[in-house]
């Protein structure tokens, strides 16, 4: 008894774990503390406006004064609205024309910038500048460049004895001017993201391919491009989402014209909401645009997950 007692005193006694509920509670308190600022910002500036937009889409409203509940009338009208479908098709076409081309050009520039090159930092900055400049400023510059009557391009063409391009009065010319300006603004961002992707490719893969006799094109085709696939998917989805949100360049450069040739979903929502003062209908266009974007994002996550599972 007496001999056993000191042993019992000196023997290491495992410290009991704190009650699980208490630990969880403290951890979750910290987690909520960290999350709450962001949740507050998202809640106030994203979720609440989103819910308010959905709510407004069931009303007829000029933005002030009494509102009238119209049920699903706005949605019924929207699905029979030829201008809405034209704007949807235009937005899709715009995405189709700008995203792939900006990806190809951006990748090409990223490949060039990934090599030792004098003044590489300055060149990267030059390519990136259009992406960080305000879209309105870009579009105002675009108006000087693409103005059908007094723009730089048409003046040069006419001085060379050629016909000017109908940048404003022809559907193809107007969409062309938008696409060219948009590609110019997008390639800087694409270049930076691809550059990060290229720098994460282990050099051993490229060296091994070279040892196996692969030429420059084959290394690009069979090693670099496949390894950049997650980056490409990210850029495609982001580019398509941006395309569905395009507003400033279109509003300033073409105003949606000629006719509805360059009307996009967001410019149409703006025209209905603020020019025609049909804010309930504009909210409906916003909700449907949101659903388009949500579906695209969901598809992106699904693709990403499948790809991660393959790896």
């Amino acid at each position: 008894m007496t001999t056993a007692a000191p042993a019992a005193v000196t023997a290491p006694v495992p410290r009991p774990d704190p009650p699980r509920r208490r630990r969880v509670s403290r951890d979750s308190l910290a987690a909520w503390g960290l999350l709450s600022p962001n949740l507050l910002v998202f809640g106030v500036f994203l979720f609440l406006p989103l819910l308010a937009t959905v709510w407004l889409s069931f009303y007829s409203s000029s933005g002030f004064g009494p509102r009238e509940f119209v049920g699903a009338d706005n949605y019924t009208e929207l699905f029979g609205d030829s201008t809405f479908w034209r704007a949807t098709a235009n937005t899709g076409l715009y995405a189709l024309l700008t995203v792939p081309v900006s990806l190809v050009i951006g990748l090409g520039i990223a490949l060039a910038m990934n090599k030792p090159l004098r003044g590489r930092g300055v060149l990267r900055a030059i390519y990136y500048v259009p992406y960080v400049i305000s879209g309105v400023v870009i579009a105002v510059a675009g108006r000087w460049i693409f103005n059908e009557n007094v723009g730089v391009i048409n003046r040069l063409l006419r001085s060379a004895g050629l016909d000017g391009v109908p940048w404003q009065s022809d559907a193809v010319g107007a969409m062309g001017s938008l696409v060219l300006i948009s590609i110019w603004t997008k390639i800087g961002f694409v270049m930076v993201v691809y550059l990060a992707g290229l720098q994460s490719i282990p050099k051993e893969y490229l060296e091994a391919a070279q040892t196996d006799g692969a030429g420059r094109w084959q290394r690009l085709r069979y090693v670099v491009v496949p390894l950049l696939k997650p980056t490409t998917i990210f850029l495609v989805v982001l580019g398509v989402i941006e395309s569905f949100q395009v507003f400033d360049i279109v509003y300033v450069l073409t105003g949606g014209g000629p006719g509805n040739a360059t009307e996009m979903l967001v410019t149409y929502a703006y025209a209905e909401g603020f020019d025609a003062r049909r804010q309930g209908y504009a909210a409906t266009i916003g909700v449907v645009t949101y659903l388009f974007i949500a579906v695209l994002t969901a598809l992106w996550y699904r693709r990403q997950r499948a790809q991660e599972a393959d790896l």
Partner: protein
Amino acid sequence: MISSRLSRRGFLGATAAGALALTGCGTGFALQSGDGTGSTEGRLSFTLWAGEAELAAFRTVAERWTATSGVPVVFNVVPFSEALTGVDANLASNRGPDLFRVTYQDIGIYAAGGALLDLTDLLPGGFLQGFGDAFVSAVQSEGRVYGVPHHTDTSLVLYDTEALAGARIPTSLDDAWTWEEFRSVAAGLPTAEAQFAFGVNWQLAGAYRWLNWVDQRGGRLLTDDLTGPAIDSAEGRDALAFTQAFFTDGLVPPTTSTKGSYVDELFTTGTIAMVFAGDFLLPTIDPAFVSAGREYGATFLPADERASADLGGNAVVATAQSVNPEAAADFLAFLSDDEQQALFCEQATVLPTRTALLGQQLDYAVRPDLMELFVEQATTITPELSAQVTVPQFNAVNSSIVDRLEQAFLSGDDPGRVLADLAEDITGRLA
């Protein structure tokens, strides 16, 4: 472990402190509600867009009124494109200003939405009798008065003197060009590549100016009771066919359709020899011609069955949210009396709405000789046309006019079909 706990607590403490700081910022935002946009007792807040000359004139008038009333006027100057969007947002959040500037075409929707102060019993008795009928009609809705007709604008044909050297230039309303004569003059102008005879100011919010042609032909946009479309008529089709030919015959730049570029710049750069332009553009056009050593003149709008002109210009209204309704009404009456309106028109190069000023020689700052013609043309603005372009739904109707005219001008669609579509649109917009 202990230090980790401490730092976490420290972080949470800092977060709490940050939250308190943000609460403080909230107080700051509250203080900023006195930034000139919301109505507050003891002063008048006035939201408006204004060029330099206009703002100077507004300030002069406000200082005169404050000197006698003792109530200061705080101006909130915003760009034209954002003015009404901002007013809408403030009204929706119950922070509307006491007063705001508004186009005649926008008054109806605000009045119908209950956003405007009913001035019928607040303005001095018989006050509106001092204004032209078209302007009185423009500030009334269902027999009630919701604003004062502060000034008007209308269009004339400005022309490059050298380009029209051989043409007959009408010098009075009675001998204004007929449609055919106008077309003949335009078709006879020498044009080079990328140069055109003229441009018309019917872009975007100005699309309603196309109705001048309909009115000149004797047609109407809306029925007499303003409840349905009347545009799909022989007169409407004639007007559309005539104006459509401007594009199909290459008389106007294809870029100047209803969704296209504003035309005044094309006139100053020499792309077009004539331009349909409002008087408010003279301060921009005049220096460009003077600096280029060129000369320009003005003549009346072409006439057909009758002469007609567009109702431009602005009213000033008070909001129903104003906590100073008597002061607001008193300021509006002062702002648009003979003396103050004359001062404003002279400084800002715009036209008066008061009948007493129509016969007077105002001392305009820019081209007073041409302003006389604008004043004369403004007498052809009819109450009938004025009533049609100030219905509450006119914004939406104007959007349809923009779309349908573009369809006719650039796609060359049949005028009958276009006007049938427009009539259908209008029926929906008015419903």
